[in-house]
Every structure is written in structure tokens, then in C-alpha cells.
């Protein structure tokens, strides 16, 4: 039992992980409140960077070698490749300075806070069972997923919706590292591949939408009636 007791005492690495988790949550809120597409992409890249750092920290404290690989995948995919693709996309599509005007930021923030409380409640029974260093952050991970979801619902432009989708993936990866020291390697590789292919397909898809509607506003995509 003594080892469990030692784990329960807040050690420096676990406090650091909690700090990084808090920063990630903060970024999730910043994304929720951000109207400009360009800043949104940069925020997404920063979130990926923090995710990499926290994965590295967990890998180092628990000496789980496969987590280093996981951190590398996150770094390459979420910090370098995806933001790069997104930057190129918005440049080519000429939506770099697009501003989302229709969202009511204070209302979304309040809904966001409710979601955070909800996720902490949901995580409580699970993290009580977990023995990992980062178990306290599971609530934050769920909150990031839900906040990204909220962002997807409230946006009417295509690119921010996709960034919301990717931020959701970030939250899920964070949940995987905080509850279980990461998924098996083959699964993580598969997920990374899916995300990458999905991004490429979306890129193609954006151009199709643009070609057809001359805009990436998905309010154009509300013609199919539910009847």
C-alpha cells in the first residue's frame, strides 16, 4: 500500500502535469472565444505542443518507452504537419482573415463552464480507480473534448469546425495518456493515420465546397431539409 500512498502525494512531476493540463484547458477556452481563423490555427498548434510536453513528462516519470513515440507522433502531426496544412489551406482558399461574427462569446463561455463542471463529475469515479500520475487530469481531458464539441456546434465556417474536430482529438489523446499511459502503439499509429488522411480528404473537400459555393460558410450547406 505504501507505493500507492507515495503516488497519492502530489509529486513535482504530477504537479507539473496538472499545470500543463490547466494550460490546455485555458487554450480550449481561448479557442472557444477566438473569432479569427488564423489565430485559431496557432492556438491549435500551441495546444498540440503542450500535449507533447505533458506526454513527454508522463513518459519520463513513468519510464514508459512507447509514450516517447506517442509524444513524437503528436509533435510531428499536431504541431507541425496539421497546422502547416491548415495554414496552406487558408492561404490558398483566401480565408486567412476570415472573422466569425455571429457567435455570442459570453453565452458560449458560460455553457463551457457548465461543461467543465459536468466533465469533472463524470471523471470522478474513473480517476478514483486510476493509478497513473496524471489521473487528476482526466476531468480536464473530458472537458477539452466537450469544449471542442461546443466549438464545432457554434461555428458556421468550415475551417473552425475542423479545428474543433482536431482539438477534440487532442482531448482524447490527453485522456488516453492521463487515464492509461497511452493506447497500444499500433492503435496510436492507426489513429494518427486516420487523422492525417481525414485532413487530406477535407482539404480536397474544401476546394469542392469553394468551387461550388464561392465561400466556405457552411450556412450554404443547410438546404437539405429534415423531412
Amino acid at each position: 500500500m505504501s507505493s500507492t500512498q507515495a503516488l497519492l502525494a502530489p509529486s513535482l512531476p504530477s504537479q507539473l502535469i496538472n499545470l500543463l493540463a490547466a494550460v490546455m484547458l485555458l487554450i480550449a477556452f481561448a479557442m472557444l472565444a477566438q473569432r479569427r481563423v488564423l489565430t485559431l490555427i496557432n492556438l491549435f498548434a500551441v495546444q498540440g505542443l503542450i500535449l507533447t510536453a505533458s506526454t513527454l513528462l508522463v513518459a519520463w516519470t513513468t519510464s514508459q518507452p512507447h509514450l516517447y513515440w506517442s509524444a513524437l507522433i503528436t509533435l510531428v502531426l499536431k504541431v507541425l504537419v496539421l497546422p502547416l496544412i491548415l495554414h496552406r489551406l487558408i492561404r490558398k482558399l483566401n480565408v486567412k482573415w476570415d472573422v466569425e461574427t455571429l457567435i455570442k462569446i459570453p453565452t458560449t463561455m458560460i455553457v463551457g463552464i457548465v461543461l467543465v463542471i459536468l466533465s469533472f463529475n463524470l471523471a470522478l469515479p474513473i480517476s478514483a480507480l486510476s493509478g497513473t500520475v496524471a489521473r487528476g487530469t482526466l476531468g480536464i481531458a473530458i472537458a477539452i473534448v466537450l469544449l471542442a464539441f461546443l466549438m464545432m456546434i457554434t461555428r458556421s465556417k468550415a475551417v473552425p469546425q475542423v479545428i474543433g474536430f482536431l482539438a477534440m482529438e487532442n482531448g482524447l489523446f490527453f485522456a488516453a495518456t492521463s487515464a492509461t499511459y497511452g493506447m497500444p502503439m499500433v492503435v496510436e499509429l492507426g489513429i494518427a493515420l486516420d487523422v492525417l488522411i481525414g485532413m487530406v480528404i477535407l482539404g480536397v473537400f474544401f476546394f469542392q465546397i469553394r468551387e461550388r459555393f464561392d465561400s466556405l460558410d457552411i450556412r450554404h450547406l443547410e438546404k437539405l431539409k429534415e423531412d
Partner: protein
Amino acid sequence: MEIFLVLGSPLLGGVLLALWGHRARAAELNVAMSCITFLAAALLTWRVIANGPMITADAQFAVDALNVFLVALTAFVAMTTAIFSRPYMRIEAAHGRLTDGRLRLYHAMYQLFTFTMLLVLLTNNLGILWVATEAATLTTVLLVSLYRTPASLEAAWKYFILCGVGIAQALFGTILLYFAAERVLGAGGDALLWTRLSAVSGSLEPTVISIAFVFLLVGYGTKVGLVPLHNWLPDAHAEGPTPVSAVLSGLLLNVALYALVRCKVLVDGSLQSPFAGNLLMGFGLLSVVVAAFFLSRQRDIKRLFAYSSIEHMGLITFAFGMGGPIASFAGLLHMTVHSLTKSAIFFAVGHATQKAGTQIIDEIQGLMKVNPTVGWGLLLGSLAILGMPPFGVFASEFLILTDAMRHQPWATPILLISLAVAFAAVISKVQPMVFGHPRTDTPLKRLPFTPAQIPLYVHLSIVLMLGLYIPPPLAEWYRQAARLIG
């Protein structure tokens, strides 16, 4: 060995067809690769029947009665749909709706889509199961938007976002499942292997497993098209090319439901309570009711049958939720007959819409006079899907209903009323399409290629046979699979 042949042939087909491009005979190559896949699947089936379940490649692949039956069905419908799509897509190209580049995309993606579905069915790793399910969405997004019309782009966007968000929930469910499994099996790849998990399912932490199942249900349920997560389904079916509607309805929904059923088995083992079954019954019943009442409001023929798919998937989900040997048997039988009948209907609908140049029901009238083969196909297919004897759908629906009377009597009237509503709605729309007077003001085009009618009638004959007589080996096979579901 056979497993790699089953998986390798569509994967190779996808690469080959992407390289082959729009040269002559691309459609024939597509058919040939699908035929090879089907032969490999038949071989695999034969091996499993002869030697019993097998686990290969470091336990990464496992084949038992449940998935081999779906592998055979998937490979078969993928093959017949490829045969159907050869003239169909040529006609579309001749009508100027498709360019050569898009045909290439279509053929390559069709093979890759088959590959992802077979991977979902054959893998033993629940993580790979998730990855393959997501990949199945990705391969079909660009197929739904193949025509690049505003409506098809909208449908594809909806499909991508809704299924993407849904499937993200399933990933969270998988993470939670892994979390629970890791405590029993230790960290590493083994903890997500279904065969290992089902062996220890009794000692998985019940609280975590039940939360995990809710997420998995929402995730995979979105792909099954369960109400209220079904919004993408009618649009994707109506706006994509008809062969894609046929495989989405006939195969993808089955495959997603298969993923859900595999998870349910683990949850049942862990909880020892009907929690998962009750959830499945609830969602299933809701889907049946909502879809049945939406049917009568459809004006587009493909949307009509898309809603009918939601209804039938709901019915199968209900049957699996109820559980027990009879209901699971009926659910599996219904999966088979629905898949065959629905793809047959889409074949008929495809040719009817090509002939009429529209998908609006009111504008497609009097098929019996215009094109009797398609007219009969649509009529028989609709009667079959509505559960008229002697077709196989009648047998499975009858079994589900009688078992519901015995175990869940409260649900029977709801099911019966919904089925009656669905019957009235579909028959009142199909009847004038088949027997009405052809609209004289629309001159009928001659189709530039002869449509493939054989797949339609092959499907309908199998459905008819399953209604009259289920061969004993097949019945035994269903029984074994039903025992696995519990």
C-alpha cells in the same frame, strides 16, 4: 492465410485501380478484384466451418462464427454491387454527370471501402476496429460528394462531421475500455484484444465499463444510423451514386452494428445485468418508430429507402438488445436478408432513376410499362423489405415479434404499429411508381448501356429462398453466432 487474401485483394485492388486510372476496363478490373475477394471470403468461410474458429497473426485477427458470416455477406454484396455498378457508372458518365478522374476515384475508393469493412470484421483488436471504422467513413466521404452538386457536398459534409464526432465518442469509449482492461490484463497491445477481453470480462470494472459502453453506443450507433443520431444517413444515401447507397445501406450499417455487438458482449460479461441490452432495445425501438413515421413524408425515392434502412437497423438492434438464442438468431437472419433486399432495391431504384432522370417519386411513374424488369424488381424488393411472406424478411420479423411477445410484451404493439405504418407509407409510394401511368410529357431516354439486372434477381432469389427454407448448415451457423452474442 485466407485472412490475408481476403484483406489483401481489396487493398491491392484499391492501389491498382488508383494507378490504372480511367483506362479502358477499369470497371471490369473492379469487378474482378471484388470477385477475388469474394472467392477468398468463401474459402475462409469454408475453412472456419471445417476447422472451427481461428486466431492468427499474434492474435491480431480472429475469425469465429459471428464475423465469418458477415465477412461472407460483405464480400458477396460488394461483388454484386461491383457488377451492378459497371453499367450504372458508365451510364452516369455518358449522361455527363461524372468525369474520368472521378470514375477513377470511385473505383479506387470502392475497393478501399471494402477493405476497411473487412478489416473491421476480421480484426481482434478493438483499437484497430475503431481505426478501420473511421477509415470506412473517410473512404466514403468523397464518394458521397462524387457528383459535386451542392446537395451532395452538403450531404458529404454532414456525413463527415456527424460521423467524425460520433466516432470520436467511440474512441473515448475504447480508451475507457482499455483503461478497465489494463487493470486486469496489464498494459500493452494484448489488453485490447477481444478474445482476451471476453475471457476475463467478468473481472472488468463495472462502473468504467458501463460509462465506456454509453460512449461506444453513441459512437458506433451514429454509424448504425440509430435515432437520434441518424441525420447524416438519408442525405448520404440520397445524394451519393446509387452503388454507394447500396453498399452503405447493405454493408456499412451492418459492420457498425457488428462493432457495437462485440462491445455489448464484453459489457454483458462485466455487468451481469441487462444494462447494455436495455440501452440497445431503447435506441432500437426509437429508431423503428421514428423512421416508420418519417417514411410517409419522403418525396425522394432514395431517401424513402434510406429511412427504411434506419427502421430495419433499429429492429435488428432491438433484437440484439433483447438477446437470447431466438432473438439473436432472428437478428442475424434479419441482418442478412435486409442487406440483400436493400441492396437489390437500390439496384432497381438506380435504374429507375436513370431512366426517368430524377429521384422524385411523383415523377417516376408506371415502371411496369416502361421497363418491366426494373418494375418487377422494385415491386418484389419492396414487398420483401416490408416483410411480406414468403420472403426471408417475413421469417426474421416474425421471429423477432414472437420472441418480443414472450420476453418484452410491452414492445410488441409499438413494433407492430410501426411496421404497419411503414407498410402503408412505402406501399402507397411504390404502387403508383410501378403500376401508375407513365408521364407522357417526359420522353424516355434509351440508356446507352444495358443495365445489369442479374444481381437484383440473384439477391431477391436468395431472400426468397431464406424465407422458404434455411439450409441446415446455415441455420447451425446462425445458431453458433447467436450463442456468441448471448
